[in-house]
């Protein structure tokens, strides 16, 4: 098995068995800062090699996914799942956005198999982070004039995750190749090791959601598995329509299938405070993240192969 996955399972097991293992929050912050910067840098470096305008179609398509997914999720949650309006909107926003950790695992999965992918995917990752947040707020509040969109924009664009991703992108894009070489040992060579520590911690956090899982029951579990499956089909189809390679198509599936647990929770907590964060984090971290990491990623690869073979 891939050691990365085993680190996640170790964290999960340690958490469920109530072991004394805990990572200091500073360590969690350090490894997630390194991951976000690495992913951004990698994207920026690749962007150097690309004519900018060619990217317009993928960026637009990705924005569409970010708008579509929450609009599909919301009625499911509100009508079928009988969640309150704010809760349904907030969960929907999480699923319209994207999980950087899941993306990183997928990238590592491809790297192990030496499968290539389009270099601008980190850019699409950044693009997909944001629109669902706005949709979520509108779903919760309507287009009321009450919403302070200035504050919302601040919350969204200046949140830690986005700043590091975009910052990394820009640095990678603007830097000399020789200069980048010198920082590779930290940001590239250590990438998978750092990801392993990150997944250990994610396992611990996911385990701490087990209690809420029981309380909120079957519907949330079903939603947390069905939604990424639906998303992966949307994402993979989009990737294929955009003419992406098999690797790129698979990553598009991963982007659409994954649910946010950094940018969106922070933004929703402030912009839609009446939504219960336990619900959305339990779905996103307690169900969808483990599902994607353990089952989804290989599945989405097969989906991508299947689409490329049959269509």
């Amino acid at each position, binding site marked *: 098995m891939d050691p990365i996955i085993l680190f996640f399972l170790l964290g999960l097991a340690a958490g469920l068995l109530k072991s004394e293992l*805990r*990572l200091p*929050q500073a360590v*969690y*912050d350090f490894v997630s800062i390194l991951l976000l910067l690495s992913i951004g840098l990698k994207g920026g470096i690749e962007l150097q090699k690309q004519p900018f305008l060619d990217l317009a179609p993928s960026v637009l398509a990705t924005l569409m996914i970010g708008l579509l997914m929450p609009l599909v999720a919301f009625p499911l949650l509100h009508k079928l799942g009988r969640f309150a309006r704010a809760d349904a909107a907030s969960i929907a926003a999480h699923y319209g956005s994207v999980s950087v950790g899941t993306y990183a695992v997928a990238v590592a999965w491809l790297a192990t198999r030496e499968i290539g992918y389009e270099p601008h995917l980190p850019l699409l990752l950044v693009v997909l982070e944001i629109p669902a947040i706005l949709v979520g707020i509108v779903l919760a509040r309507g287009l009321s004039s009450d919403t302070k969109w200035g504050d919302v924009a601040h919350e969204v664009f200046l949140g830690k995750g986005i700043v590091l991703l975009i910052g990394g992108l820009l640095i990678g894009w603007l830097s000399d190749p020789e200069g980048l070489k010198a920082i590779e040992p930290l940001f590239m060579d250590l990438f998978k090791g750092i990801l392993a520590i990150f997944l250990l*911690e994610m396992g*611990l*956090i996911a385990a*701490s959601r087990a*209690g*809420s899982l029981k309380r909120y029951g079957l519907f949330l579990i079903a939603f947390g598995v069905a939604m990424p499956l639906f998303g992966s089909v949307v994402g993979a189809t989009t990737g294929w329509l955009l003419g992406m390679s098999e690797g790129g198509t698979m990553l598009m599936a991963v982007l659409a299938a994954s649910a946010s*647990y950094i940018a969106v*929770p*922070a933004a929703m*907590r*402030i912009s839609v*405070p*009446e939504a219960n*964060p*336990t619900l959305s*984090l339990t779905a996103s971290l307690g169900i969808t993240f483990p599902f994607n990491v353990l089952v989804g990623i290989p599945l989405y690869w097969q989906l991508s192969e299947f689409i490329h073979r049959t269509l």
Partner: protein
Amino acid sequence: MPIQEDYRRKLLTVITEAALETHLTRDLDKLGAPGYTITNARGRGQRGVRDAGWEADSNIRVEVICDDETALRIARHLKQHYYDNYAMILTLSDVEVLRPEKFQP
């Protein structure tokens, strides 16, 4: 054991979600708090265990020393704006201070 005259102030202690820090300190500035002190915390309350594994599960403990009026004003503001939707508790107690003029708005 008064150290000097007019030495009594209120100590307002708020324990709440770390995600609120920026907003809370902005509010405190506006409401005339003469200062504040923040420490990182974890805990359990009505909204469950918050064990500081990561940002979303972390608490902060905010202390404000001020006169009675400011304390009441802050408490009312917090009650109105945050109490329903956030993990938050609030206590008040009496303290003596060394330089009372520091704790005026």
